[in-house]
């Protein structure tokens, strides 16, 4: 055919062209991501203080220290609690909101904006706002409780072990609900109406339609929401750092903040980097299925 004859044949070595185009991006990637990562791995095997020009190779001793560090035990426990709560609650609320906003509701654009706004606010601002709301003497939460006669429930929310972690999770949930809501909303709009019509004809109730039509159709969205939320949850740092500084005592330390304290405050960069490597390995383990699913789709 004339049309195909006009297309020049690829030259020898042409199959390398895509890789050549990738070189600039790859160079940046190696310089700013791969190299620091490999450096971190190396420093986790040293006793570097993070400030001196000298350091000593100590093998895996930083890693062997981890299970014997009582703060690491607290941090891992806090990470697990944080992960479960800040994934489950925003995901469920996000799904409920998405379903509600996908229906016939007045002022849908405004409501979507309101629910998504916390997700775009700077985390430090959110931490600061909520820090004031929780202020034990002058904060709005305790003031409200006192105003309605529930003085006994007024607490130093961030100042005691029993409530501090949970108190930090509330704003985290508040700001993280918008993301699943948005994804679910987009996914809901992609479900063909015919499926619901067919289910209605078959006599399925609304609840049955939800379980047998909506939920299976949202499977890809569930996957993205859960994978990204899981990765996000395990590397939590900023909210806790800004609101409690890991306290009171070490009660709200998570692996991210404990890594920070060791690297940046205690001049134990080798040990702190070992914590970072562990966080990274966990995140990779969690991320691999997601990456594989994405590359499979791309193929």
């Amino acid at each position, binding site marked *: 055919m004339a049309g195909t004859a006009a297309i020049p044949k690829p030259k020898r070595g042409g199959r390398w062209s895509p890789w050549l185009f990738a070189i600039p991006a790859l160079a940046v990637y190696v310089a700013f991501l791969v190299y620091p990562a490999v450096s*971190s791995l190396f420093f986790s095997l040293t006793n570097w203080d993070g400030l001196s020009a000298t350091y000593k190779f100590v093998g895996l001793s930083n890693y062997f220290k981890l299970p014997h560090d009582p703060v690491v035990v607290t941090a891992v426990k806090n990470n697990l609690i944080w992960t479960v709560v800040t994934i489950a609650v925003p995901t469920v609320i996000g799904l409920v909101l998405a379903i509600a906003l996908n229906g016939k509701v007045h002022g849908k654009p405004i409501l979507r904006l309101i629910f998504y706004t916390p997700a775009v606010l700077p985390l430090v601002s959110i931490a600061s706002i909520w820090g004031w709301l929780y202020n034990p003497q002058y904060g709005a939460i305790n003031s409200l409780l006192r105003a309605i006669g529930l003085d006994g429930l007024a607490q130093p929310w961030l100042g005691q072990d029993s409530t501090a972690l949970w108190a930090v999770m509330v704003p985290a949930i508040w700001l993280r609900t918008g993301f699943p809501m948005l994804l679910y909303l987009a996914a809901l709009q992609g479900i063909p109406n015919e499926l619901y019509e067919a289910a209605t004809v078959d006599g399925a109730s609304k609840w049955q339609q939800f379980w047998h039509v909506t939920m299976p159709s949202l499977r890809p969205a569930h996957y993205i929401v859960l994978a990204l939320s899981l990765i996000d949850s395990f590397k939590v740092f900023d909210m806790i750092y800004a609101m409690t500084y890991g*306290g009171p005592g070490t009660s709200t330390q998570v692996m991210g903040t404990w890594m920070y304290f060791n690297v940046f405050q205690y001049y134990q960069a080798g040990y702190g980097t070992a914590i970072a490597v562990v966080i990274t390995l966990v995140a990779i383990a969690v991320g691999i299925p997601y990456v594989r699913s994405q590359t499979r789709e791309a193929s």
Partner: protein
Amino acid sequence: MITRRGFLGFTSAAALGAGLSACTGGGTSTGGGATEAASNNLRLFTYEDDSTIGLLKAQVKKFDQQNGTTTTVDSLPGSGAAVYPDKLRTELLGGKGPDVWRIWGGQIGAPFAKAKQALDLSKYYDKYGWDSKINTKAIGGMTFDGVKSGVPFISLGIGAWYNKSLFAKAGIAAPPKTYAELEAANDKLVAVGVTPCGLGGKYGWDIMRLFEYLLEHTAGPDLHDKLLTGAESWDRPEVVQAFTLFKKWQDKKWLPQGALALDPSDVEPWYVQGKTAYTITGPWTEAGAILAAKKSSSAFGNFELPTDKTPARHSGFVEGYMINARSGNADKAAALIDFILQPAAQKAMNITASTVKGAEPDPKTLPLASEWAQKYSGNPFYTIQDQAFPKKQADQYFSVQSDLLQGSVKPDAAAKKMQEIVSAWAKS
């Protein structure tokens, strides 16, 4: 052979990992950041707050005009020693640290000297005669392993700064002279609905000022000093008594409710706003809290916390400047420090506890700081505890305080735990 899927998978996973690992800074530089080669540009890093940064910049501008330099002044106010040293350290490792930086003495400044990030300033001490111009004891606070790595310009004592009208409201005629009188004053304040002592525990160091005072009261000067160096065991009755009193202050509501979570920068000015009767702080509070709030100094007063011990001591610390060991402009940086250390510059910057002779606070503009200097600055002081311990041990110590105030450990267990912390450090 690398497949497309394999390549995408590898790079995506690596990006995920690298993103986290890079958060550690990676330590890509191990020797501190080199600043620009000799030029007329200098950078000074400090933690002045809004009320004083303008005064420093004005003096720096004068120096620049006289010396043909251009000095950039950056400040990170607010978090105290909890965050500022991290930012400084990150800058130094990032490849281009400041030429001059302000820092606290003791164990906060020590790591910069020991890591040789800070220049040995001996030759500049000789050149500018700082040894004869600056309080000798203060120089000791910035000398590490025999090396003069910093130039102290502030030597501060901590005491009680109070709101006169709230004391009057509670019927307190004069500042307490004994510990028993202080407790009685606290009771009177609570009785009229006023929280006595405004301190916050978010970063640990602020509420520590109360405990270290109580330890000075129960242990006395000799033992307190030995405890701070690990020369005596903390597992002893004097320490248990100090922890017992510490808990008592909270239980009797002599501290704000939920003090452990309060940010010191929020709480300290409460005595000026009339929300608490007093706080435990230094003379900088006159410029930083009273005058900044457009209040008259005459409405406030200060007194040394009564220890019932001889000699009467308060906690104290020094602050000074260090020069980047890799600065290409060390000579100009030293000249800048010498300029800032001149009595005229110190006075212009409202330095309330200068180490420089002839730079005492002006009683007309800073009457309370001047009063403090005349009454108490001659008294001996013990090293403030967050400078006495390295940061890690200080944080462990704050954690013990926190556990005690929350009731999860008893005073005797807290004393034992402190002994473990301090002895482990002393052995290392």
